[in-house]
């Protein structure tokens, strides 16, 4: 009720007097700082930063949009979809106290299963899709099971084991692809069948033939689902409790090891879905000898998204925009591609420095409050 009569300034002070609100703001400020740093860099190398940022936006969203060509937006969304999955995978593990560096490997293995089943099964499209999506989740989960067991049973840090599993995934997939589903060239698998492709004509047409595919809907569902699990279910409650304090969780009768395992499996399953999104929606076959970079990008996405499911979506979108827009920028100007990478790196760095940012806000609020007090005092004196 009272709020109605408050000025914007008062509401600002009121809102940011609360520490948790200040914390929520931090990522936006770090993005701002990162972009600012990018601006300075562009100036330094003698380029027009305004044009630079307009190009980034054009290249990732707007170019053609008003003529009804949604291709660029579609492409950005497609990238953001994969990043949402990998970011969510990392974030989920973080929420439950685990640091999953192995998302790339899990994604690759999930994707391999997708491509395998997309090749060998003959099913009506809806069924085929259902099968491969489930299989992707299972594949990713299987790959995360090893670090999960090692962590739960032997307390071996998942940081090492997931790194190792990335490499193992690369070679395992390489072996089985060449055995079972070799492609025309030795370095890739054969293409999946149409019925297993997540590309959906209506969607593809709507976005003028871009890579956007059904997995964007899946991503939306999974994000909500994970949010729901974490916030609304006893299962999520347990996972978080174990993540924060395994000892107390044990005292409260929770099965700590089992929860670590579940957590790793779910994180892996989400990574597997990233595999489905990428390999059945984007590439339609597997390339050998590489672990997808999306895993490492996922770490950054998760961290910038404060490990919250919806935060991950936002930061995945930002990353999508910067990545696709960055290339356009590179094409349109002589601003090098590395500049965008530097900006992204800086954003993450500033995100780490949230405390500084919060500290500055705190000071600002204090100052504003003090000013207000003085103001009031003066009035009283009058």
């Amino acid at each position, binding site marked *: 009720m009272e709020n109605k009569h408050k000025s914007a300034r008062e509401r600002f002070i009121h809102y940011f007097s609360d520490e948790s609100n200040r914390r929520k703001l931090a990522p936006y400020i770090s993005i701002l700082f990162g972009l600012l740093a990018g601006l300075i860099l562009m100036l330094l190398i003698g380029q027009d930063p305004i044009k630079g940022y307009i190009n980034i936006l054009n290249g990732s969203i707007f170019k053609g949009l008003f003529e009804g060509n949604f291709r660029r937006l579609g492409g950005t969304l497609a990238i953001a979809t994969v990043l949402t999955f990998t970011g969510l995978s990392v974030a989920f593990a973080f929420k439950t106290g685990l640091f999953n560096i192995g998302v790339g490997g899990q994604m690759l293995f999930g994707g391999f299963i997708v491509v395998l089943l997309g090749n060998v099964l003959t099913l009506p499209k809806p069924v085929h899709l259902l099968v491969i999506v489930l299989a992707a989740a299972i594949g990713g989960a299987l790959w995360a099971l090893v670090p999960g067991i090692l962590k739960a049973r032997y*307390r*071996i840090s998942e940081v*090492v084991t997931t790194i190792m599993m990335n490499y193992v995934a690369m070679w395992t997939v390489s*072996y089985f692809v060449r055995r079972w589903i070799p492609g025309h060239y030795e370095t890739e698998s054969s293409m999946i069948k149409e019925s297993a492709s997540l590309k959906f004509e209506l969607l593809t047409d709507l976005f003028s033939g871009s890579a956007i595919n059904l997995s964007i809907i899946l991503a939306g569902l999974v994000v909500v689902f994970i949010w729901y699990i974490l916030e609304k279910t006893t299962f999520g409650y347990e996972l978080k409790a174990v993540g924060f304090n395994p000892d107390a969780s044990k005292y409260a009768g929770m099965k700590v090891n089992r929860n670590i395992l579940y957590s790793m499996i779910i994180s892996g399953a989400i990574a597997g879905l990233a595999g489905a999104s990428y390999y059945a929606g984007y590439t339609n076959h597997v390339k050998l000898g590489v672990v997808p970079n999306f895993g490492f990008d996922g770490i950054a996405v998760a961290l910038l998204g404060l490990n919250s499911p919806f935060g991950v979506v936002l930061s995945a979108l930002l990353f999508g925009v910067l990545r696709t827009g960055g290339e356009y920028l590179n094409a349109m100007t002589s601003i*090098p591609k*590395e500049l965008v*990478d530097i900006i992204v790196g800086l954003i993450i*760095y500033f995100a*780490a420095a949230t405390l*500084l940012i919060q500290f500055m806000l705190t000071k600002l609020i204090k100052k504003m409050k003090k000013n207000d007090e003085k103001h009031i005092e003066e009035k009283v004196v009058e």
Partner: protein
Amino acid sequence: MLDFLNQIFPLAIAASIPIMITAIGGLFSERSGVVNIGLEGLMLVGAFTSSITIHYFDQAGNNNEYVVWIAILLAGIVSGLFAILHAYASVSLKANQVISGTAINMLATALTIFFARFLTRSQNISLLNRADRYQKIPILSDIPLIGNWLFTDIYITSFFVLLLCGIAWFIIFKTTHGLRLRSCGEYPQAADSAGINVVKLRYQAVIISGILSGFGGAIYIVTIAGEFNGSVNGFGFLALGALIFGKWKPLNIVFATFFFGFMSTFASLSFVNEVISSFRIPYQFYNALPYVMTLFALVIFSRNASAPMALGEPYDAGKR
């Protein structure tokens, strides 16, 4: 069999040295309580710095032995400076150390390529000057077995690194400085109340981790790669793995990295070894072998490894 081992050992040592010194660098940082997943980036900065340094010497036609050492030294300095970024975020700003480390990796990749392009117009810098490798070392090489394994085909830089590892062990476990360092990683509140400047020590430790990672990156360049190409092939992450695998103890880390080097050398040589290659085992198997073996070794040796207690926790001096 013995021949095969004789062949593997020197190569395995060479392959493990860059990882080893980087892991030892990570050890300093983590023993002081600061997680450092930015090792890969710090190595990369070292790799770049050494390459660009040598590049200029090459261009000047300078082929002296000290060129390599100057490059290594500069790599250490620049990586050490770069590590201040991580120290500032994780010590002064009390940031999430994982985020900061991730940022270090991203920034290192982008910046080194940026500067390589800017300075040499190519992100690929090939070098003429490289580290010397000694086929034989007087007397030492003649020791049976050990002579073949440790003192044959050895890079001078390997001695340097092994010496540094020894010094690291000495500092961490024998000196007052080490005692203080460890106390910061275990329980910084205790260190603080004993009048130890936790912030300063952690800064030092992170910077040392930068310096040693820089050495690692440089040594990777001057022994293994011979050119810079915008990556250190995941060696920094392997170093992080070795650090954990080695339970945060210098000697164990040396063995952990050597184990890994041994396995990957074994794998690579298996391609070539007449007997082994006659089994016609798919090459993917050999390529995966080092990683799989490391997983097994972890199960056997590293159960319940306990990290420094305060690892990853920003220290809040007065909880201000």
